[in-house]
C-alpha cells in the first residue's frame, strides 16, 4: 500500500497549496514537507537548491532507523532538509497508516518518538503541531510529528520509534457528540 511516484507529486502540490495560502505566520513556521514544497514553488531560499540536492553524494545522506510497531527495525536514508515523512514515503517504508494527511498538519498518523538527546535539539514545536500531537495515540514526552522534523547531519544514525496504537486512547476525542 505504499504510495507510488505520482502520489508524491500530488502530495507536494497539495502541501504547497496549503502553505502558500496559509495566512498564519505561526502555521507556516516550520512545516517539513510543506516548507520544502512551498520554497520550490515560490523560488524562496532553502538550504539546497534542486540542482545541489541532485548532486548530493550518498555520503551526504543521513541514516535513520525506525522501530516499527511490531518491533522490526527499518533503516533508511534521507537528504538534509527532508522531513521524516519524506524518508518514509521515498523509501516505501512499511508503516501502517503513516502520513494520512500527507504532511499538512491535519492528522497525527506520522507521530514518532525520539531519543532524548535528539529530541532536546529539535527545533521548537509550533502550536499547530502540538494541537495535532494532542490527538496522537501513545503520546510521550519525546513525541513529535514526523512531517515537521527535517533531517540534519547531527541526526545521522538516530533511532525513532513508531508508537503503538493504544486502545485506551480511543475514547479521548469526540468529533460530533454534544457535551
Amino acid at each position, binding site marked *: *500500500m505504499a504510495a507510488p511516484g505520482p502520489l508524491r507529486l500530488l502530495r507536494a502540490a497539495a502541501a504547497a497549496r496549503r502553505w502558500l495560502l496559509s495566512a498564519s505566520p505561526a502555521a507556516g513556521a516550520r512545516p517539513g514537507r510543506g516548507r520544502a514544497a512551498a520554497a520550490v514553488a515560490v523560488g524562496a531560499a532553502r538550504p539546497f537548491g534542486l540542482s545541489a540536492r541532485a548532486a548530493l553524494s550518498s555520503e551526504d545522506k543521513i541514516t535513520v532507523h525506525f522501530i516499527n510497531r511490531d518491533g522490526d527495525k527499518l533503516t533508511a536514508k534521507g537528504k538534509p532538509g527532508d522531513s521524516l515523512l519524506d524518508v518514509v514515503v521515498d523509501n516505501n517504508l512499511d508503516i501502517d497508516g503513516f502520513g494520512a494527511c500527507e504532511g499538512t498538519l491535519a492528522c497525527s498518523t506520522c507521530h514518532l518518538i525520539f531519543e532524548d538527546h535528539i529530541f532536546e535539539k529539535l527545533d521548537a514545536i509550533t502550536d499547530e503541531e502540538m494541537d495535532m500531537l494532542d490527538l496522537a495515540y501513545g503520546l510521550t514526552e519525546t513525541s513529535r510529528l514526523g512531517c515537521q522534523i527535517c533531517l540534519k547531519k547531527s541526526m545521522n544514525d538516530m533511532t525513532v520509534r513508531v508508537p503503538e496504537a493504544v486502545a485506551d486512547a480511543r475514547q479521548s476525542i*469526540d468529533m460530533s457528540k*454534544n457535551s
Partner: protein
Amino acid sequence: MGPGGACWRGGGVPGGFKRWLSSQARAPRVCVVGSGPAGFYTAQHILKHHDLARVDIYEKLPVPFGLVRFGVAPDHPEVKNVINTFTHTARSDRCAYYGNVTVGRDVTVGELQQAYHAVVLSYGAEDNRVLGIPGENLSGVYSARAFVGWYNGLPENQDLKPDLSCETALILGHGNVALDVARILLSPLDLLRKTDITDSSLAALACSKVKRVWLVGRRGPLQVAFTIKELREMINLPGARPVLDPADFAGLGNAVKDAPRPRKRLTELMIKTASEKPGEKTVAAQVAAAAREWGLRFQRSPQEVLPTADGRRARGVRMALTQLEGSGDSAKAVPTGDVEELECGLVLSSIGYQSLPLDPAVPFDPQRGIIPNSSGRVEGAPGLYCSGWVKRGPTGVIITTMNDSFDTAQSVLEDLQAGVLDVSASREGFGAVGSILRSRGVRPVSFSDWEKIDAAEVARGKAAGKPREKIVDPEEMLQLIGH
C-alpha cells in the same frame, strides 16, 4: 478484473500456475459495506496483510469516500488527502468498488454473506440525534448534519435551502461539527470560494445576513467535545471576533493543571482567548473592525424553539440554565430552574450523528446506536464484522477511525488464520451479487466510472478556480458515465 489477473500479469510471480490454482481455491472474498474512511481503511489493511484476499467495497451513492467527501469541511482540504491512499487501494487488482448499490434494499446482508467469506459493515451513521423539544420542526431549524450535507453537495440535502436571512444563529452542541458549521457561516466568502463547497451553497452564503453565531452546550468548558485545532482555527478566523465570557472560565486554569494534555491545552486556549482584551491583540484593528462575532455559551439546555407571531418560523430558543453534578467527562447537567431566552432566526442542532439498523438480519443496539461487537466481530453473527462509527459510535477524528478499522481488519485476518472463517469452499463474490443486482435492475458504478465523474467535477471547478465543482444530482452522475 479477471480471475487471477494479478498473477498472470505479474509474469515473474513465484509459484506460477500452481500458485494461481491454489490461490483461486483459497482466496478469501471479503465484502465491505460503505466506502467512507472506515470501509477503505478496513479494506486497505486486509489487502495489505493478506496476499490473496480480495475485497469488494459496496456504496449506496454512485460516488465513494463517504464523509471525507460529504462531511469534512470544504476548507479542510488537507484532511481529504486520505483520498489519495483510498484511490490507491481501490485501484488494486484485488479490490473492486461497486457504487450505486444500497445494501439492505438492492441486496440483503444475507445474500452478501452467501457470496463472501466475510462481510464488514462500515456504513457509518447516516442519521442525526434529534432534540426532542417543541418547535424543533419550525422553519429556520435544521440539523447541523443536513446543513453540512447541503454545503458539501450530499444529494439528499440539496433541497434544504436554509434561510440565512437573520443576523443571529444558534448552534446547539460543542463538537467539531458545530465549529465547522459556525466557521462556514462566518468565513469570508473569498476563503470559501477557493474550496470545493457547492456553487449553490456559496451563492446562498453570499446573501447570508448571519453575523453572530452562538454555540450552546448543556455542560461547561471542561466538557466541550471539539478539538483544539478547530477551536484555534475559529479564533483566528479573519473578520470574526470571539466573544467568550471570562466568568465562564474562572478558576479553570487551576482545575486543568493536572488534566491530560489535550484537555489542558484546549481549556488554556479558551481561557487565554476569553481574557484577551481587543486592545491587547496584535491584530487589534482588525478585530475591532470585525463585523462578525461568535461565542461559546455554557450550561444551557434547550427547552423549546420559540415561534414567531405567525407560528411558522423560529425566533429564539428558551433554555434551562444548568449546574453540573460530578466532574470531568461524566459530569451531568441538571436544570437549576432558571430559564433564559436567546433570540435567533437560525437554529442548528449539532448534538451528534446516529447509526441506523441496516437489515433485520444484523444485530443492532438501539440504545447505543451501534452494532454490538467485540473488536469488530458482530456478536452472535459469525462471518459478520463492523468498523467505524457503526462499530463504536459517531465520534473521533480520522486517526480514530483508521485505528479502529485496522483493529477490525486484524480480527478478520485472525479469523482467517485460525480457520474460524472457513475458506475451503470458494465464494463467488461479485459474480453472485452482480447477477442478483442485474435481476433487480440495479447497475453498479465502478471505480473507473467514478474516475470519470471525478475528472468532470475537477474540470468544472477549474473554470471557477475551485478544486472541483461537485455534481449533486445522482442522475446526472449516472448520465455522465452512460448508465
